[in-house]
């Protein structure tokens, strides 16, 4: 794992002249008053590894991932700003530049280096004071999101969602296709023509043999090829127009019967959508407050990015602790997100309605392309079919309405089954009449009946196959989803248990002899779905959650710090160093010292870059960390050079010793 040999920064943030830190893989404690440029070091680091500076990347101060504010404004246009890092593995050494057009480049473009940077992207390398409590005070959903991001579980969540969504989509397709009814329609055509059902080849051949018997053809039907042979044999060109008419009416009859079978589904879907839509709409306060969600989320993002430096509310400008504002925002956002789930339910009902209605519209559109509809004789029938299409389209229009619109009453819009049933019956009659119009012509009747039943049988098999394929797909997705969530939960529980142990360990080192024990990250589930994570702990042997209700700011910070350090141990695979920028501001003297001890004992094999603006802390822990081989440095800032290193007392002592 990589450790840093040296850092050189020039022309970035507050650093004007080159600033060099020779670390030789050692940890360093850096002191600098506010404004001496410690954060310039952290920002440059963040840019080197993550190609952005999160707290500078908001609309006001930096649109290009913070690059606008990265380059020092006093360096000449001909000069590039840069950060150069050398590592114990020199293949990773690199200098990253930013020119006056804010274009960036890197001196190392090797595969090794690119892979290193790509892997570092998911590692925890920097902790600033402002980020310290983010996880602790975050809502349960955000905690889950944050943890999933760190451990790469956001990808797991995506795969899980894909499996669930596709399984549900296939199930919706099966439901909206109404396969059993489609099969019944084909079977009724077979029954009308063959006088019996045909669920298998044998049943079809048996019925067909009986049908052609009066023709005395001396042909035995044992295959579908035999049926074709018979059809060719008894086909008459003179009757083709009548046959076209029969086919036309049969097709319309089957399609309308198909829609007839779906009417109940369509009406039910509309009712469900209508009821959920109006239930949400009824509480206008709810709908109004939903509009606040994005405002609150934006406010949270502004505070988290430290756009507002001091403790006041950026909206009403009243004095208030930022941690308090963030906690309140998290609570309100969580409440509104619950409400948003109700809205999502309405949206899903709208999608369900659409997926139920659309296949029927497609069926009608297919019908309307029939050639015979162009003839005047069929104008009235065409009009009737078009009316059904309009009625179906009305449902689609309703499904697209927003919460400010009014839906058409479910009783007014509903499709009336009786009207469609009557149309189907009429069409059955027409087909029957046409088929029997040549009563005397036995060959024609047999031909028509054999042709229609054979066609319906093929269609029946196709629908049956499609139904079985989709049923298999649905079952597959359900089984895979079940298997996948087991794996996800097992892995997450192992992670949470081990991770909680470390957090507890680090927290207890910083807070010995206190009654806060057994700190745990606990998964929260709703309807078997993982919905969040909370922090649980024992206080005087009673379990409490969340921590913010009982712990002081200093203890919450300790928890945040413990979380970061546990993440470093768990997930940093490429880098054996991390930067802590002013993270102890709220700690009292005892906590500060124990924090330094935690770093020197539990993280002795790591390279720590610890920045502080507090002289007292620097002096308190200097001897502790120096005795463990750390380097000490003072930052200063001058108008001419910007940030630089001051040779402090500790440094002078070193030089005397060397002499």
């Amino acid at each position, binding site marked *: 794992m990589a450790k840093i040999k040296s850092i050189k920064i020039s022309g970035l943030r507050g650093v004007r002249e080159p600033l060099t830190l020779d670390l030789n893989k050692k940890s360093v404690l850096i002191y600098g008053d506010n404004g001496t440029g410690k954060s310039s070091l952290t920002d440059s680091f963040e840019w080197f590894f993550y190609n952005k500076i999160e707290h500078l990347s908001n609309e006001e101060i930096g649109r290009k991932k913070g690059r606008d504010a990265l380059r020092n404004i006093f360096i000449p246009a001909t000069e590039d700003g840069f950060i150069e890092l050398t590592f114990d593995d020199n293949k990773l050494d690199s200098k990253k530049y930013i020119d006056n057009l804010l274009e960036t480049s890197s001196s190392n473009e090797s595969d090794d280096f690119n892979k290193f940077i790509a892997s570092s992207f998911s590692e925890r390398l920097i902790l600033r004071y402002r980020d310290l409590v983010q996880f602790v005070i975050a809502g349960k959903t955000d905690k889950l999101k944050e943890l*999933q991001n760190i*451990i*790469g*579980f*956001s*990808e*797991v969540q995506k*795969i899980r969602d*894909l499996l669930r*969504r*596709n399984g549900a*989509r*296939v199930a919706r397709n099966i439901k909206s296709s109404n396969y059993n009814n489609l099969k019944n329609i084909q079977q009724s055509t077979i029954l009308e023509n063959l006088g019996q059902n045909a669920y298998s080849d044998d049943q079809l051949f048996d019925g067909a043999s009986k049908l052609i018997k009066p023709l005395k053809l001396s042909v035995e039907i044992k*295959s*579908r*090829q035999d*049926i*074709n042979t018979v059809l060719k044999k008894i086909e008459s060109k003179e009757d083709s127009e009548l046959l076209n008419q029969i086919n036309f009416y049969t097709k319309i009859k089957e399609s309308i019967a198909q829609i007839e079978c779906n009417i109940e589904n369509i009406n039910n879907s509309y009712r469900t959508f209508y009821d959920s839509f109006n239930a949400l709409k009824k509480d206008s306060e709810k709908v109004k407050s939903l509009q606040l969600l994005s405002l609150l989320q934006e406010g949270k993002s502004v505070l988290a990015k430290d756009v507002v430096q001091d403790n006041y509310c950026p909206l009403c400008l009243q004095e208030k602790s930022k941690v308090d504002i963030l906690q309140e925002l998290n609570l309100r956002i969580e409440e509104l997100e619950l409400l948003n789930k109700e809205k999502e339910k309405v949206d899903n009902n709208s999608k369900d309605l659409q997926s139920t209605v659309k296949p029927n519209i497609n069926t009608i559109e297919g019908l309307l392309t029939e050639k015979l509809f162009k003839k005047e004789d069929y104008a009235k029938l065409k009009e009737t079919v078009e009316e059904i299409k309009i009625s179906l389209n009305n449902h689609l229009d309703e499904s697209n309405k927003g919460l400010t619109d009014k839906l058409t009453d479910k009783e007014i819009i509903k499709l009336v089954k009786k009207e469609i049933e009557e149309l189907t019956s009429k069409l059955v009659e027409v087909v029957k009449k046409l088929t029997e119009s040549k009563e005397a012509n036995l060959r024609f009747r047999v031909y028509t009946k054999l042709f229609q039943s*054979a*066609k319906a*049988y*093929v269609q029946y098999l*196709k629908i049956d*196959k*499609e139904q079985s*394929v*989709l049923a*298999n*797909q649905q*079952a*597959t*997705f359900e*089984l*895979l989803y079940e*298997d*996948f969530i087991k*794996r*996800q939960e097992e*892995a997450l529980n*192992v*992670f949470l248990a*081990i*991770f909680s142990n*470390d957090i507890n360990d680090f927290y207890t080192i910083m807070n010995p002899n206190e009654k806060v024990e057994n700190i745990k990250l606990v998964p929260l589930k709703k309807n078997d779905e993982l919905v969040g994570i909370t922090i649980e702990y024992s206080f005087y042997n009673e379990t409490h959650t969340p921590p913010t209700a009982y712990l002081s700011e200093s203890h919450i910070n300790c928890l945040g710090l413990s979380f970061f350090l546990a993440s470093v*141990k*768990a*997930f940093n*695979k490429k880098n054996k160093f991390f930067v802590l920028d002013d993270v102890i501001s709220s700690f009292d003297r005892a906590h500060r010292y124990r924090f330094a001890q935690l770093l020197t004992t539990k993280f002795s094999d790591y390279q720590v870059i610890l920045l502080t603006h507090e002289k007292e802390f620097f002096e308190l822990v200097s001897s502790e960390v120096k005795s463990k081989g750390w380097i000490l440095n003072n930052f200063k800032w001058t108008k001419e050079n910007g940030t630089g290193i001051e040779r402090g007392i500790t440094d002078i002592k070193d030089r005397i010793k060397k002499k």
Partner: protein
Amino acid sequence: MDDQIKSGKDVIDEFFSEILNVEGTDENTVNKLIELYSDSKFTDINIQNALEELKLEAIKPKKIKDDGEN
């Protein structure tokens, strides 16, 4: 600690390497999903298209020499 914790990638890779062992699943569908994941194409729209393709392939009329299709 590192050895016991599975990263998200570990969980996903393990799932896809053992996916064929999940009983009761449709082999064609599972193979298609493995293929999409291996090609880094495991997205909603690609899965949807693949399922549609599998369905169309299954219902495509097959020409039988001795037993012709109507």
